[in-house]
């Protein structure tokens, strides 16, 4: 620990949360490398993870587009009915200064999840096919990671449940096809996030770029 001979940097891995340094030993498939100090998962490789993430991302992209435009919830009260799509819900804040909020909401529940799905496909497809990485793959993955906390489709879904319990005593509410699409989407988004081993992606982007 105190000797001054240079440490081969490639053999080290450092926990980004607590700065603990470890000698890198690649865990086998299905195993996980965990930081002993703070418990952050450092490496969690999975067999065929790339292909699975691409499939899930593709499904997410299709579901978002479909769920955005088709009717989502329908309300009935005293002979009057009203159907809304997810885009309508996002754009509910449309008067005056609230317009900024409408755009933010639309971004958080539609555009950010969609962008992340497309970026994942762009980054991972060449890696899975053993091709050199796509142009700007590093930047694309970087953007996708930066957007991660701002992708809020799953929070919106729980928000639907809360809103419905508040409305039910006021009117009848019916679920449109988009509601079920969105429910499926939320499960897929969670899977998509938990499948990605960030360390593996960075390492393969790095390797393919050097050669």
């Amino acid at each position, binding site marked *: *620990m105190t000797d001054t001979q240079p*440490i081969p*940097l*490639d053999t080290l*891995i*450092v926990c*980004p*949360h*607590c*700065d*603990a*340094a*470890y*000698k*890198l*030993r690649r*865990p086998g498939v299905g*195993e*996980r*490398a*965990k930081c*002993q*100090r*703070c*418990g952050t998962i*450092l490496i969690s490789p999975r067999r065929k993870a790339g292909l699975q993430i691409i499939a899930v991302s593709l499904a997410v992209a299709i579901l978002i587009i479909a769920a955005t435009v088709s009717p989502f*919830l329908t*309300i009935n009260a*005293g002979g*009057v009915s*009203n159907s*809304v799509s997810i885009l309508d*819900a996002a754009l*509910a*804040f449309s008067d005056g*200064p*609230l317009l*900024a*909020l409408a755009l933010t*909401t639309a971004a958080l*529940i539609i555009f950010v999840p969609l962008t992340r799905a497309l970026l994942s496909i762009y980054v991972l497809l060449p890696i899975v096919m053993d091709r050199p990485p796509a142009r700007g793959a*590093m930047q694309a*993955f*970087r953007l996708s990671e930066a957007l991660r*906390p701002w992708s*809020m489709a799953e*929070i919106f879904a729980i*928000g*639907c449940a*809360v*809103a419905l*319990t*508040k*409305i039910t005593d*006021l*009117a009848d*509410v019916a679920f449109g096809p988009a509601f079920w699409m969105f429910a499926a989407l939320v499960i897929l988004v969670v899977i998509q996030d938990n499948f990605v081993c*960030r360390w593996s992606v*960075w390492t393969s982007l*790095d390797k393919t770029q050097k050669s």
Partner: protein
Amino acid sequence: MDVTGQNAEIVSARDLGVVACTRCTQVWPAGTQTCGRCGRAIIARDDKSLQRVWAWWLVGLMCYIPANIYPMLRTRTLFRVQEDTIIGGAVELLHHGAAGVAIIVLVASVVIPLGKFMAIAFLAISVTRPSSVSNHHRQMLYEVVEYIGRWSMIDIFVVAIMSSLVQLNTLAAINPGRASLFFALSVIFTMLSAQAFDSRMIWDVHAKREGAPDNE
């Protein structure tokens, strides 16, 4: 599954004279400016981190005040128009006997946001002086704050869904109030404040104290 052997003493990258990229975890010699792999600026310890934490924290808190003063929802029914603030709405629910829902609303929109402000402030203060709370607990607190932060947006989404759905011509209409904008801004600024916090600092203070115990 661990990378190192069991019971080995854990060494910080800083003590090894190396610095790691916080985005892609690639390790570089100390003093490296930018990560050669992903291009992120490498900062051994972000001295400006706490300043940014406090700046976002303050703006977030400033937005939280109007979020509670202005009405969150405007409900128009056949005979009357009603404007509810966050707390006013919860009190209303309480009068209608829906104590359970009222408590949920209060926890989600008042207790959790205020708890987040206090937790971030505590963490930011705790890394500048010896703390009686263990590093593990503080790291856990930080992860909880980061995780819960996003979920506060649920209030905004509920308002969005209700006000787009309940538009029944003359019968009833719900519209968002000005507070929704401030509440959303408050949530976003608090998230930025938590993201600006460099959690490696939690572990630094500990190492410093152990290394030089008589350096008070």
